[in-house]
């Protein structure tokens, strides 16, 4: 179990922070931005759902769940690349 060199630690944290900002952007988009347009989206209908309503009732929620599983595997890949993942 090797200690990270300061340079590698810095690179690791830069990658981790980058992923954090990506995830925050996804969070912000599906929590707020898409719903700003709810009145306009409501003019579009899919399977009977007005789209603006659908996004708040289901669409964003699905995006949340999928992005969290994606995040868990992505961060794990970064950990493994830098050799800082825990042993199984």
């Amino acid at each position, binding site marked *: 179990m090797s200690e990270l060199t300061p340079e590698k630690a810095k690179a690791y944290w830069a990658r981790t922070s980058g992923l954090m900002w990506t995830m925050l952007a996804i969070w912000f988009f599906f929590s707020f931005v898409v719903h700003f347009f709810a009145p306009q989206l409501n003019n579009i209908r899919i399977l009977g759902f007005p789209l603006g309503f659908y996004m*708040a009732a*289901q669409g964003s929620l699905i995006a949340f769940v999928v*992005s*969290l599983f994606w995040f*868990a595997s992505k961060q794990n890949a970064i950990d493994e690349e830098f050799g800082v993942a825990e042993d199984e």
Partner: protein
Amino acid sequence: MANNTQTGGKSFIDNLGKIYGIYTGGFAAFVIVLAILEQMGVPNRIIGYLFVFMTVGVYALIGVLSRTAEMGEYYVAGRKVPAFYNGMATGSDWMSAASFIAMAGTLYLSGYDGLAFVLGWTGGYLLVSILLAPYLRKFGQYTVPDFLGARYGGNVARFVGVIVLISASFAYVTAQIFGVGIIASRFLGISFEVAVFVGLAGILVCSMLGGMRAVTWTQVAQYIILIIAYLIPVVIMSAKVTGVPIPQLMYGQALEKIQALEPALGVVKGHTAAFADAKGNMNFTDGMNFFALILCLMVGTAALPHILMRYFTTPSVRDARKSVAWSLLFIFLLYFTAPSYAVFAKLEVYQNVIGQQITALPNWVQSWGAIGLVGACDAADAASKFALCAGVKGNADGILQLSEFRIAADAIVLATPEIAGLPYVIAGLVAAGGLAAALSTADGLLLAIANALSHDVYYRMIDPHAATKKRLIISRVLLIVVAIIAAYVASTKPSHILAMVAWAFSIAASGLFPALVMGIWWKRTSNMGAILGMIAGYGVCVYYLVMTQFYGMPLWFGVKNISCGLFGIPAAFIVTYVVSLMTPAPAKEMQDFIDSIRVPRGDVKLANAEDAISH
């Protein structure tokens, strides 16, 4: 430990799938047996009794089997709960009586606006996973105030954290015990005050002997029951109304029919209209409050200690991240179903209730009206038959108009089995689910409060040399004391109780979130900055709540006080930032500590072992 072989031992963890598989099968068989008993003429009251006592009995059994005398087991379930099961436990820890019973009703009554709760109570898990849970897991102590103490130089920060934690959690747990009392009194036919204390016994027997370990394994069992109970009635309803048993997909059709009916019924604010005021016009303040509430609920989710401490129990940092994803999936299953309850119930009301002769109303209006959850207020003396009709003036034309119809939020989920024409056994199942939801959340909250008092206040601040045995006794005694106080408050039926639950989110968001996030993500955050930031956020939020709620202070910019975090969160961030820059940067040891919790592998380098313990 002799009882390690019961639960928490290796063979138990390896066989979780089998154990909970058998448990689920057993529960299904139990429901079928009750259905047969009902057909044979066993009275409803007995069915209700069997449901309540059998399920609570099983939880109690798990609680007793999980008893423990080890610190690590008592506080963090031995840190060996697999990600998947911790996700289930978090799901039931999270979903309370409010989610299970009241949310669909809120969606019925407020349409699109109510979706702020659906969004706010799910999206916060992204913040939990990306900003906090993995790092707190790596830190690897027992409680959330432990982190504040270790990162911000000791007991002052710890104590401020405890104050915020207790403020946020206590109102919340009181509401859960209130919910248990409501359900138990309805299905057991006992008085509310007695039911509260019966429910309390159910809660304590789960958590007292085994702490976090017992709570974890009962919460998994409670999740299974609550999700089955939530899905079955609306799946059958969907099959009846649309022919397809997938309510989440099919309620679009029902929505279309509702929107077609709305103009004729004189509905001005449609079910799906976004950011509309009561007249149906788009309105800036309504839109702003929608987004403010989403923000406060999400940030609050990421700061509520009873949720964060669940991720202390996973075997690794990797599992903590995976576990948040599983948690959200399990929570999602209920939350994306809730709007379909609301829509199917509304369609039933619009099609079969409104515009009908009073004498030809469906039976469920009568039966739920009798217990004060529905009101058909056409006749002049309607208030004598329906409690909800007080103050509503009908036109007494013998036909029920929309303006003469009243329904309580709680009725939507509870009455759906009857609206769908299902046997009583399904109503009993729903009650068992609601009870599971309320009990599991109450367990998690009580444990969070009792741990903060026993571990953070007593052990860390009053008697750091207390022996393990004494600490465990203290925490059990405190658990009982807190539970009794909460039950007493619940039994007085405080009028602001539902508002207080929503306040918990804003309080936690303002008081804890900035200090936790900045402690991990900004090394420059100083002790003084964080402490003053917590006080500022908590102070602003509580001031706004109390002044607007009780002293008639006008709202700032029209922001409802449920969203006081909209002021508290930025206040805390700004104060923490500014004061940190004005005070010296944390020492090298503290910087090393932060570096060590940012990386999954390796040891945690505590800056000052006195500020945190690791045994």
